């Protein structure tokens, strides 16, 4: 089997997820080739063939053009599978390519069991095995699901590729995350609020516990989207990735995007009424309780110590 791996550049930098693509090919026991729209200045450590399109000419984000470049490479390489990261780049481009190639697309592959693709369902509460019915299959890989045990080595054999043409979308550049304010990545203790806090007034009790523990408070995406907590405090894929000594998750069910941002914390405590919540998978301690009763009492007793 041959897999075409599609790596990503952002703002001139090769994204580290390239190693997850390489790990996936290894897990599948497949040969691979790689495609990327990027730059010769930052090549991946990869001992294989790399088709490189110049980002300054093709644009880092230009799905029509990237799709055409990929179609040319697919025609040359004839892979049985094409693998993207399940990222803002991958989930955008993969369906376009799958459609053009009349291929099935299997999204957010989280593991491979005896060669069968496994994907999550219902907020990661369930899993599903999927079989493609087409000869060529496009897959996107969940962030962090596949990893290499040792650092990759080698240099790619580069073949430059290009394509004429514009594209229907106009890319107007990037907007950086807001600067200033709290920096959760430097906090040693973080108490985070999830949807389970129920109402904005309850952010106060999370902040009070964080203060009693001399830490900072954070939040999961739904709490930030509701406007209860500022975006700077959001933990997860689209917010901050944190590694504190203690992470205390209150009323957070544990969507994969949140787990990706905090699962490397040294010690994780979760307070949740649902014993089966996915946060339990990464927690060292899961307290099955209503946070609205538990958190104020914990704060009070810690203050009294």
């Amino acid at each position, binding site marked *: 089997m041959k897999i075409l791996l599609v790596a990503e550049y*952002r703002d001139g930098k090769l994204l580290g997820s390239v190693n997850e693509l390489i790990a996936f090919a290894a897990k599948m026991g497949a040969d691979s080739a790689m495609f990327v729209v990027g730059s010769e200045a930052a090549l991946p450590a990869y001992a294989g063939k790399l088709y490189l399109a110049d980002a300054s000419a093709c644009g880092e984000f230009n799905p*029509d053009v990237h799709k055409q470049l990929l179609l040319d490479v697919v025609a040359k390489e004839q892979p049985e599978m094409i693998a993207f990261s399940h*990222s*803002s*780049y991958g*989930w*955008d481009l*993969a*369906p376009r390519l799958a459609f053009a190639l009349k291929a*099935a*697309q299997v*999204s*957010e592959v989280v593991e491979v069991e005896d060669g*069968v693709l496994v994907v*999550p*369902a*219902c907020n990661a*509460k*369930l*899993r*599903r*095995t*999927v*079989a493609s*019915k087409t000869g060529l299959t496009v897959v996107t890989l969940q962030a962090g699901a596949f990893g290499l045990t040792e650092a990759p080595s080698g240099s790619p054999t580069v073949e430059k590729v290009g394509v004429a043409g514009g594209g*229907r*979308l*106009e*890319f*107007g550049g*990037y907007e*950086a995350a807001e600067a200033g304010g709290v920096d959760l990545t430097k906090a040693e203790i973080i108490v985070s609020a999830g949807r389970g806090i129920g109402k904005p007034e309850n952010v106060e009790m999370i902040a009070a516990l964080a203060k009693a*523990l001399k830490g900072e408070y954070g939040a999961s*995406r739904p709490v930030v989207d509701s*406007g209860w907590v500022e975006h700077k405090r959001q933990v997860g*894929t*689209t*917010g*901050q*990735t944190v590694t504190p*000594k203690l992470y205390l998750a209150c009323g957070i069910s544990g969507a994969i995007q949140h787990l990706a941002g905090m699962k490397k914390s040294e*010690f*994780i405590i979760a307070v949740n009424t*649902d*014993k*089966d919540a996915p946060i339990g998978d*990464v*927690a*060292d*301690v*899961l*307290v*099955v*309780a209503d946070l609205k009763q*538990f958190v104020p*009492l*914990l704060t009070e*007793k*810690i203050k009294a*110590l």
Partner: protein
Amino acid sequence: MKILVCIKQVPDMESKFKVAASGKWYDTADLAWRMNEYDEYAVEQAVQVKEQVGDADLTVLCIGGERVKETMKKALAMGCDRGVHVADDKAAEKEPFEIAGIIAEFARDKQFDLIFTGMQSQDRGSAQVGVLTAEMLGIPSISTIVQFAYADGRIETRRELEGGVKSIVKAAAPALVTCQLGLNTPRYPTLPNIMKAKKKELLSLPVADLLKVDARQETGKMYFPVKKGGGLVLEGEIGQLVDQLIQILKEKTGVLA
């Protein structure tokens, strides 16, 4: 101006799920149903565009059994003008390519200027249907938007990337966008609008009229992942739980030192 918004009805994700007898999907009995969260943002944005341009007709489309009409009524009460219910008791078994095929078949000759979808569903989560629909219709699509503006036949959006970064992407209508959480603040339907929604057109079409493509993938089995945590689970009376946790904090972490 013609606008289409596509929505899905999904279970409340806090539900206790069970695997169905078929072994291929979750059991749909005893679940609370609601509008897919991402689609609430899609409906809100579509209604805002309608309010902005004034002269617009906004259709909401949903595929599923009789049950999904309740969710469609919410979209109508939020401000959609008419509903198209694609009647399909087996919608849950259909994969994204089939769902997109149904929507594209419906939309093909209707000249929608803008199509809104959620970026993914909360249950299947493929993040494919919106983009695939646009490819089938031959119109541009922008996925994962967290800001949207429309003026003079052009749209300007912000896509959400990883790590808090956004990108600016523009396109000319007709176009499709897939909506990410946080795009706007979905409105709660008011009582007068709920009453008005009852009188709005809700057309049912049999799925057989619109399904012209074959499935490209199939589910083997659905199951609960094996708990890998192995972490300690504490249950019981609140006061005792607090004392137990303080003891753990003292022994296992340095934070109370």
